[in-house]
């Protein structure tokens, strides 16, 4: 078997094992409470009957391992269980919300990725001069403010004061025309873009600067190419692999950003569903959302590694 296939198979297998272990971790996370989960869900004033009912419903009378296995079995067959509070099938409630969330994350990525690479190139071209310094200043500011506040700042100025965009995403309808949908999510997309932009830009800058120290860049400079040509023709192609890696890692980070941003803009996605269910202590929904977020995150990281393996021959020959 060619080495590259073997490496890829290993990485995919690792991803699957990780996902399996994470499912155990998430399940364990909901039973680590030393006391009684039913008690903590219903509060101190709950009647003994209500407690007994909830325990039976959660299957708390069975051993933890058995509960985990039956939960995992359902998960593998696509059965996410039923929500405690609404009694509805979780899979049904999630599918629409998941596609809404992916829609939001997709458009944020479409805007953020090219912008980050362009600004990263700009920072390298004018390094140590004002465009570079301005970009790193904005970067420092944006990693110093939590995501949800960036969202509210944009909402306040561009949604309310200037009135350019819808302040919240309540106008979002999944079955509306594409343009209307985009119009209603303009601000959440802008916020998510700002959230991931800074890190992506910095790493792009670092990746290109790293290549810029090579001898062939000096050759290119000495033969009289101008700065931009050196970067675009010689540095960029060799920096593609680390950049793609950074992009994937940041898209994975979008998964976290999306949870908070959906709450800020009242967007009907997975993140809001998760947060609502946590405050309602709807454990089955929390577990289901948790494992889906984890799967997306692990998947993105896996793709990042696969891209590195494919694009960098040096990684294929471990010493």
């Amino acid at each position, binding site marked *: 078997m060619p080495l590259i296939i073997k490496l890829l198979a290993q990485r995919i297998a690792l991803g699957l094992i*990780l996902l399996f*272990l*994470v499912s155990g*971790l*998430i399940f364990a*996370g*909901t*039973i*680590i*409470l030393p006391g009684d*989960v039913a008690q*903590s*869900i219903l509060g101190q004033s709950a009647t003994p009957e209500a407690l007994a009912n909830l325990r039976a419903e959660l299957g708390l009378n069975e051993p933890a391992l058995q509960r985990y296995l039956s939960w995992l079995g359902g998960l593998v067959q696509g059965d996410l269980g039923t929500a405690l509070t609404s009694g509805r099938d979780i899979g049904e409630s999630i599918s629409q919300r998941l596609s809404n969330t992916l829609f939001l994350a997709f458009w944020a990525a479409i805007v953020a990725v090219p912008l980050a690479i362009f600004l990263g190139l700009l920072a390298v071209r004018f390094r140590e001069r004002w465009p570079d310094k301005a970009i790193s200043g904005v970067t*420092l*500011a944006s*990693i*110093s*403010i*939590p*995501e*949800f*506040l960036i969202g*509210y*700042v944009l*909402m*306040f100025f561009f*949604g*309310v*004061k200037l009135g350019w965009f819808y*302040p*919240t995403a309540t106008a979002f309808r999944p079955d509306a025309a594409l343009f209307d949908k985009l119009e209603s999510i303009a601000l959440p997309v802008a916020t998510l873009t700002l959230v991931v932009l800074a890190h992506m830009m910095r790493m792009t800058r670092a990746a290109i600067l790293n290549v810029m120290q090579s001898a062939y860049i000096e050759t290119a400079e000495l033969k009289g190419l101008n700065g931009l040509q050196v970067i675009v023709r010689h540095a960029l192609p060799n920096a593609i692999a680390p950049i793609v890696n950074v992009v994937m890692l940041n898209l994975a*980070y979008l*998964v*976290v950003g999306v*949870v*908070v941003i959906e*709450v*800020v803009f009242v967007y009907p996605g997975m993140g809001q569903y*998760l*947060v609502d*269910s*946590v*405050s309602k*202590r*709807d*454990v089955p929904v*929390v*577990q289901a959302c*948790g494992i889906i*977020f*984890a799967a997306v*995150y*692990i998947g993105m*990281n896996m793709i990042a590694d696969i891209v590195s393996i494919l694009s960098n021959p040096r990684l294929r020959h471990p010493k």
Partner: protein
Amino acid sequence: MRIPLAAAIGLFFTALYFLAAIFAPLLAPYGYAEVVSTGYWDPPSAEFLLGTDGIGRDLLSRMIYGGRTTIFVATAATILSFTTGSVLGFLAAVAGGWVDQLLSRFVDLLMSIPSLIFALVVLSVMPVTLPVLVLVMGLLDSTRVFRLSRAVAVDIEVMDYVEAARLRGEKTIWIIFREILPNALSPLVAEMGLRFIFMVLFVSTLSFLGLGIQPPQADWGGIVKENAEGIVYGIPAALMPAFAIATLAISVNLVADWVLNRTTSLKGGRG
């Protein structure tokens, strides 16, 4: 010792925030839960310097008390994260073998999901109290400290003086606390600043989601949540914590940068 201007500014503001947190009851003009006005979202005035919030509490007082809660919780979580993470990280490096494997693989597993998602999962069954918050945030974050301390300790572990200590028969505890810790301190201190900021952002985010510090207790994330409704009416009260968090974060970053630069230049440029 000369302190560069940026670091001095950072130190000054960091100290200011911590002092304000400690002396909040003396500084705040009103109580944090005291309803002082019948109106809601009064604009700033001589009586209420930052105006009032949605139910007529003084915003300046809530910001000061909020800073106290946020900074205390973040500090406690950072201390927990550092003690757990660094001791286990040093242990993994010194003990090696299966101890190292076990700890490192478990940390890999914990870090394979975003800490916010895992915190939400755990908080769905835990009662949301201050000790629980500190525990969840500190332990989840200790994974990062573990990785750093292990990496630093692996480098120190091969030094002659550690070998000498081993040969004269010192125990693992001695090697961790008397040989590794003093030499690993500077990179850890720089990292501590960054972890502290991360904790401030983390606890603010949890409170904003309604899963952190519970009302009527004030904290910066909670102030955003309470006043978020005002945004659509053009009332900027919810944006106030943005300024506080950003200035604190930037100040601590400036200090951490300076500590990091100092330690790397002392060690002859080792990054």
